[in-house]
């Protein structure tokens, strides 16, 4: 461990200028915060968190739609636990559940399908958020529902994909990034080749990174080495699980059930081709179609700077709401509510100077 850190210090010294690397994966955010890694890096290397937490980039309008569905009689909303406390513009699923709505936390979409079979008198809606890591299991579940003819199950899909969001950040003049720490989990599915356009078109180095703190340190060293050698390429630190092409079977499954669409990212806006919508062939299991639900971009809490945090132009501590009116107990913005959110991670593990 010390060897790798020493190597980073040596490389950073040799490079001799300030650099900013962005990770775009909630697991990396957590690994960095939980290990206290930032305090160990040389002063000229800054690590920032991008829009990698699926809950954080989910638009307020989507939460409003979920709340509205939960209020309908005969509807059971099933979701990963992280979404339960996410505030919509007026309520949250947690509040609706306390008021009598049927909201169930599940650990996988197939559990939601089981609930649909067990509760034939209910319409079971699964909240489909997340990146390429969760999409294959959702696709598989929709296919299974179709095969078995389960009619009371549907998915409210707001899935997103990472590469075009990374491109949107590079086009944003406010955002200054010298290298990307690419998500390990996502890349297991997509393969590393997906990021090739970033060094090719923008000259920005990318390294696909595993999710332990030591992986992140190694990844920082690899990014520094590319900058020193004035190269830009996609390299893989997480070689134990990621290759160039990814998991082809999972990619086929995604393509069979989902198609590219434009998607609204909280704080960033609509990014073309960065979302996944359920294909019309599977419209019978698409909550949006079944219930005629639509959601637009809703207004976030006034003063909430989550958008700037997600774009990496503001550190959580610099947000006037941070640890004041916005805390994990009473989150105003999505970056505070999800355990993998940048603000929640900073609050939990790194707010030392502030709170003491």
């Amino acid at each position, binding site marked *: 461990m010390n060897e790798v850190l020493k190597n980073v210090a040596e490389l950073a010294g040799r490079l001799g200028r300030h650099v900013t690397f962005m990770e775009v994966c909630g697991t990396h955010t957590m690994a960095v915060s*939980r290990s*206290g890694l930032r305090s160990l890096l040389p002063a000229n290397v800054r690590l920032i968190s991008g829009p990698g937490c699926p809950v954080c980039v989910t638009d307020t309008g989507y939460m409003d739609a979920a709340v509205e569905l939960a209020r309908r009689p005969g509807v059971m909303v099933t979701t990963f636990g992280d979404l339960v*406390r996410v505030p919509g513009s007026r309520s949250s699923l947690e509040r609706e559940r*306390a008021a009598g709505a049927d909201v169930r936390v599940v650990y996988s979409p197939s559990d939601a399908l089981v609930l649909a079979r067990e509760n034939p008198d209910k319409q079971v809606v699964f909240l489909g958020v997340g990146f390429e890591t969760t999409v294959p299991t959702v696709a598989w579940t929709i296919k299974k529902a179709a095969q078995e003819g389960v009619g009371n199950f549907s998915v409210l899909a707001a899935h997103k994909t990472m590469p075009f969001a990374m491109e949107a950040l590079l086009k944003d003049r406010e955002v200054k990034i010298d290298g990307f720490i690419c998500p390990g989990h996502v890349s297991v599915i997509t393969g590393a080749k997906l990021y090739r356009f970033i060094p090719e078109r923008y000259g920005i180095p990318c390294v696909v990174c595993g999710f332990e703190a030591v992986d992140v340190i190694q990844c920082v060293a690899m990014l520094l080495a590319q900058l020193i050698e004035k190269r830009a390429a996609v390299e893989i630190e997480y070689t134990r699980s990621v290759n160039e092409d990814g998991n082809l079977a999972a990619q086929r499954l995604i393509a069979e059930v989902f198609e590219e669409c434009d998607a609204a990212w909280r704080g960033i806006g609509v990014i073309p081709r960065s979302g996944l919508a359920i294909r019309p062939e599977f419209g019978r299991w698409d909550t949006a179609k079944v219930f005629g639900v639509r959601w637009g971009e809703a207004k976030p809490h006034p003063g909430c700077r989550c958008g700037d945090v997600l774009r990496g132009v503001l550190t959580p501590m610099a947000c006037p709401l941070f640890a004041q009116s916005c805390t994990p107990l009473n989150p105003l913005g999505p970056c505070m509510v999800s*355990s993998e959110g940048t603000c929640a991670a900073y609050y939990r593990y790194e707010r*030392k100077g502030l709170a003491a």
Partner: protein
Amino acid sequence: MKRDRIVLAHGGGGALTHELIASVIVPKLDNPVLRTMDDSAVLSLGSGEYAFTTDSYVVKPHRFPGGDIGKLAVCGTVNDLAMQGAEPLWLSLGLILEEGLPVAELESIVESIGRTAAGVGVRVATGDTKVVERGRGEAVYINTAGIGRIVTRRRLSAASVQPGDVVLVNGNLAEHGIAVLSQREGIAFRTSVVSDCAALWPLVKTILESGAEVHAMRDPTRGGLAAAVCDIAAASGVGIRLQEKALPVSAEVRGACEMLGLDPLNIANEGKVVVFCRGTDVVRVLDAMRAHPLGRDARVIGEVTEQPKGMVLLRTAIGGERIVDMPTGEDLPRIC
């Protein structure tokens, strides 16, 4: 967004639970004994001092690897007494049963209560039984209250911890929470993790008899080790520094936590005690703990410092430093 209704996280044993107690309950019932907010109240009766506590048990499912709701209902209350340095004497037993519960099932739970109570030398002195309509309960809920005789001369309290104290724990963390979680519908993982559910009085007695200067003890139940040490740091106005490398977590629990996105520091234990003792007495306490079967894996996990007041810090495995925070009350199933 103000919470005008009770949400599940209010029962998580974390920040929301504390907020509810401080804002809704204590102000209306305030008195000097309640205000101490220790695991048990300390009452002076006649010539002696007694610890008095109560706890309700709603664990689901009510049978889990390593125990059941009956065993838990004895251990949990006995442990709250033990944390105050009290030898458990008497329990009350309140049963809330759901219409349709098989009598054989109730018998097995009561047998478990009897067995566990006999094992630690506590007796059920009084009880109550209520039945609610089918669908209005979850087969069985239990409330127990306990009375114990305080045997320490020095008052153990969350507020008595001092800089220079050492923090110890008697073994692997997070096993109760993970064992119960693994049994829950919808969580498809198999594990051999067994709940650590145990009555701690015999171990605590050994520690107290070692003659070491113990300042506080806590059983890190809901909210896990994090909630317990954060409580102490706040109550005593001290800093607590834990060493990640020293924290005992089995590989299996670590794996399950990673898979479920949970921090083992926030997960419940039902047979663990966190001991705060004077730094110079650490060997004495360690020897005493290790001599007892419940303390075989006892170890030092951290130390108490003057600064930063009210805060818990963790030296991470890679040498970084981070905060350990009071859990907010995650959306976790009922584990006790």
